[in-house]
């Protein structure tokens, strides 16, 4: 079965280039990508509940990543979806990586970073229990 990836942006962040590039990349690799554009943390968690993706990717270039991603992870937990791996890509200063990871983000992709690892993470979701990350 084709694995599904949910991609979105939290809040009013206006940049869509990164998300579009990652969506195209993953589609070319054979994954099903659901790109939902801008949503609030609650909305995106609700979308995750409906879509049941193998991985959730959030593109953030607005500077609001810590507050919005943290709230999103809480909203996921509320729906008992904390086992779905969440990755964040975009403009995320190194100073914030630890805080995001402690909050539950599996991996952070910054500009120029190869995406092979993202592919492996999604592929890995099929053969391993999702708590393995």
């Amino acid at each position, binding site marked *: 079965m084709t694995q599904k990836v949910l991609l979105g942006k939290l809040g009013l962040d206006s940049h869509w280039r990164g998300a579009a590039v990652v969506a195209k990349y993953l589609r070319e690799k054979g994954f099903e990508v659901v790109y939902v554009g801008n949503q609030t943390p609650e909305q995106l968690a609700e979308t995750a509940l409906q879509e049941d993706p193998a991985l959730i990717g959030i593109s953030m270039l607005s*500077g609001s990543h810590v507050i919005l991603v943290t709230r999103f992870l809480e909203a996921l937990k509320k729906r008992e979806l904390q086992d779905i791996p969440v990755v964040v890509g975009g403009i995320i200063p190194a100073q914030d990586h630890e805080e995001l990871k402690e909050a539950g983000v599996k991996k952070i992709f910054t500009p120029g970073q190869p995406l092979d690892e993202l592919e492996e993470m999604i592929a890995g979701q099929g053969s391993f229990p999702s708590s393995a990350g």
Partner: protein
Amino acid sequence: MLSNYDGDFLTHLLEQKRRWDMDNESPTRAFTHSGVEINPLYTPADIADQNYFEKLGFPGLPPYTRGIFPLMYRTRPWTIRQLAGYGSAEETNERYRFLIANGATGINGVFDYPTLRGYDSDDPACEGDLGQGGVAIDSMADMELLFQNIPLDEISVSLVVCNPGMAVTVFAMFLTVAEERGVPWEKLRGTNQNDFLMETAITTAPDVLHPDFSFKLSTDIVEFCAQHVPGWHPISYTGYNYREAGVSAVQEAAMALSNASATVEEMLSRGCSVDDFAPRLSFFFSADSDFFEEIAKYRAARRIWYRLMKEKYGAESERSQSLRFHVQTSGASLTPQRPLNNVTRSAYQALAAVLGGAQSLHVNAYDEALSIPTEEAAVTALHTQQILRYETNVAATTDPLGGSYFLESLTDELEKSIWEYMDKIAEMGGMVAAVQSGWIHNEIASAAQEHFKAVQSGERKVVGVNCFQSEREPEIEIFRVPDIREKQLQRLKEVKAGRRAEKVEQCLQQLQRACAENKNIFPEILAAVKERATLGEISGVLKKHKGGWVLPI
């Protein structure tokens, strides 16, 4: 026809060049970033058939290839216009004044994500985004503070009100601040971005105005300014942002020029005369890393604009025919890895802008791939401009690269490619149609994808990212946007308590009617702003009238 060189000279030159080529075959091929092949060597033969008077002429004269002013920077130095904006109006006002005190000669005000999409700070959609990426403006109370102690009749102000849906309101607030301070609108100098492509193609948001409506709003401002704010540039086609979204130099220029054509045609269809509004149309271009291609792009764009305005639209005024532009160095070329490398990148890009004849310039700060600039990074960017102006001596003569065999040849090549791309857009029915169909979005996404692949494969080198990576990344200070939520909510509450609620309601209803009647709605927006209607309230009417468009991406 006059050509640059005579026959005997050319025959001799071509013979010599043939021999040189045979002795020096290049092992590699090279291309500009937009795909124009670059020869290993250029000689007079490459520009032999160019008629100097047709292609270049003198600066300040048609076709304006060499610049729009006769003496360029000697008499019209470029405006040092550094972007600024974060948090609340007070903090941004302080940053404006800090930059001016350090030698900036213009303001370049950027707005936060909620403001750019017409939300008041108390809207649930703004969660987490207040004061991010720019200053939060909800109402006249914020706008008054934003321009406190700034003489509006002395300094030119660029309002980065990129989306027409909010530009109408924030510009109306700016005009109202001027009016209430007793500054006549005739004395105001500055620019709105006000580009419908920004609203409907380049950036994304949850509730977007339809392209035709966003476009209509942008031209409402153009029409209003032509009548009432003659010194203002009502629109600045944001080629810069198209480029940041992924397209090439050719696409950037072609999309911006096609977009300007759409405005001109709409204004003509409203019965305006071209020389009444075209003198104030302006452009905003990127300065990316391919040095000569960027310079050629600016020169080609000036030549195209001249021909377009004169031949197609019959403009007589010199100002209508000469393309004015602001430049920002490329944000997308900056790297979070080794941030100080960005000083070097931005400096080369800024040099290209000045050699290309820009009227005003923003140089990015080295930390912009990480956060809003710290004061230290902002000052370094400002100093980069000042070093360029006062130390390098490059501004002493006009169009110093004019006549370069390579640059003139490249300018010609780009001109050709830009015209071709513009023809493609025209065949589709023009810019509004190209956006509505999703063609523009697709072009942008494809170009971004190509760039991504070139960087991933290493074909496009990015120092510190896919080559010459550092083992040890230096840690730099990150700017943190202050939490302004409480302050904004309190101020909104006070504004709402202190105004005439009935009048506000009437104004909003009148605006709704004006939307339905498809007339110029700017006077209604001004009236609402004067009664202290908020950005969110006014935008709410616009969104209700024609929002809910989903970007085809």
